[in-house]
């Protein structure tokens, strides 16, 4: 009996040992990756005296947790405005991106335009032109449009990186929709535009939604444009407002700062997390499918 049990037991033991080894090896990476977020979270809920005592054990609460830091954020700063700005900017950027990138991605993937592949690559490469080269000329353009010092400047500027990325993404997406579906629609009497609107677009909804997410998350990664183009305190998006408005001279309100960072940063990070593989597929050209 005991002998019959032996092989599965050692098998299990082996598997447990393997797991323990892997967990032991990967724990440092997880700690390094997550600690700054944990540190944000614990700081945000600490009372000030708890933050500035060197003899305290810093990784847990020594005084009762508090929501005071968040109250300061919403009652004494423009934090509420920034959240609102961030959402409206992202909504506009997503809209502009969809209206331009969906048709372009479709045209490049499906309509056999001469030089379509090269045009697609050219559009995608503009994603790699860094903002640091464009921000000075764009500041002039933004001023000419009368948009300086308003978040509308960012609505105009952010599509310069979301359109190239999403066009490329959608181009890959439309290529995977079988040609037969479109042909069938045409046989049934749809024109070119009809086939696109009534047949291709609905089945491509996941790709379209992914583009919306990227329009949002990529906009959140910007700092330079927001810093350079929007100076009034109530016009900034969160990633620009928090570091520029909440730090005054040498005085840091670390509790509120970390609360502000956490409250918006964490949901964005989690959302982006779900779409990270698509992002990697996008930039590597779909090789790693």
């Amino acid at each position, binding site marked *: 009996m005991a002998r019959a049990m032996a092989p599965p037991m050692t098998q299990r033991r082996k598997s447990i040992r393997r797991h323990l080894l892997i967990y032991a090896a990967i724990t440092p990476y997880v700690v*390094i990756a997550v600690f700054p977020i944990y540190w944000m979270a614990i700081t945000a809920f600490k009372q000030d005296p708890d933050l500035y005592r060197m003899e305290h054990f810093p990784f847990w609460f020594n005084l009762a947790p508090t929501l005071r830091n968040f109250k300061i954020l919403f009652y004494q700063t423009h934090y509420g405005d920034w959240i609102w700005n961030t959402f409206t900017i992202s909504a506009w950027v997503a809209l502009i991106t969809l209206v331009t990138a969906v048709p372009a991605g479709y045209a490049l993937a499906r*309509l056999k335009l001469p030089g379509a592949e090269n045009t697609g*690559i050219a559009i995608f490469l503009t994603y790699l032109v860094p903002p640091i080269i464009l921000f*000075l000329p764009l500041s002039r353009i933004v001023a000419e449009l009368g948009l300086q010092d308003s978040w509308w400047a960012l609505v105009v500027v952010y599509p310069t990186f979301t359109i190239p990325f999403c066009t490329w993404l959608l181009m890959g997406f439309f290529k995977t929709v079988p040609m037969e579906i479109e042909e069938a629609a045409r046989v049934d009497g749809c024109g070119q535009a009809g086939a696109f609107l009534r047949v291709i677009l609905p089945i491509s909804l996941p790709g379209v939604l992914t583009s919306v997410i990227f329009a949002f998350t990529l906009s959140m*990664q910007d700092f330079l444009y927001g810093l350079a183009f929007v100076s009034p305190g109530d016009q900034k998006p969160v990633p620009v407002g*928090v570091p520029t408005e909440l730090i005054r001279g040498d005085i840091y309100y670390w509790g509120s700062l970390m609360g502000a960072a956490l409250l918006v940063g964490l949901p964005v990070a989690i959302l982006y997390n779900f779409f990270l593989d698509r992002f990697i597929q996008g930039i590597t050209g779909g090789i*790693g499918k």
Partner: protein
Amino acid sequence: MTGSSLHGGPDPMARAAVVSVPARAAERPWLTHGARRLMFGYTLLAPAALYVLLLVGAPFLFSLYLAVSDANVGEPIAHFVGLENFKAALEMDVFWISLRNSVVFLVVAAVLKSLLGTSLAFLLLQDFKGKKLIRGLVVIPFTLPIAISVLSWKWMYDSQFSVINWVLSRMGLIGQFGTEGWPIWLGDPKLALVACILVNVWRTFPFSAIVLLAGFTSVPVEVIDAAKVDGCSFFQRFRHVVVPMIFPILMIGFLFDTVFTLSDLSVVYLLTQGGPANATKILPVLAYQIGIQAGSLGRGAAIALFLVPLLIPALILVLRNLKRREY
């Protein structure tokens, strides 16, 4: 090939065209089906292409123009000054410091993140319980908006209440607060650049790992098995089978990272603004300070353009690898 393919042939699109010629062609008989398809295609492409041309293409050319002018924030009229701005930049000590810091930053960060990224990718290649969750946790640095995560680091690098120092001090690796042995990460010229590089490494090592992982998983198991049957050792398989197969994807990941690391201003700007005593000044920070804060658009544009020679090899390599994706 567009017009003539209308009459059949091996092109599958042409066959589709024959099928769908009906009713509508009669409305505008002077347009062939192919021509209408092209018109439709270019109409769909136009908005995106125009947006990119007007707000990326034109500004890029405009920045070349700014760089050879004496454009200033206050004065609307700019004059041509030739290569004056580039010459002035080359004569600034701080330009050379920034260039050196940029290159050091790029190279040191690249080495560290490839080491961390590769080892992490190998771990994530294993099969184990809870892998999805762990992967999700490990990539958080990359998905968190950069300006936001830098704030957390700024707090961890605090001159007095640094949690890093608290730990190191309790472990006996550094001295007490107020003594020589207490590192002031962002205030010490010797440490500040290291501190900035660490933040970049922290943020991008998950990206390196995920790109590598995508590469590894794209290698078909059959190919590995075939190499095993042929008697290749693990390192031979890695060196002669896996690496060549994932090379394009590696290049693209590497080059994306180069472009973003070289041109990113947020980490340094938010941590140190280039200080202390220019110890962390990199080209993007210098371009911002001269172009926006000092209002000298021409000179700022010229400094930013010094990044282009560093970026062009990256762009060319990306281009070549993207073209290969068809096969």
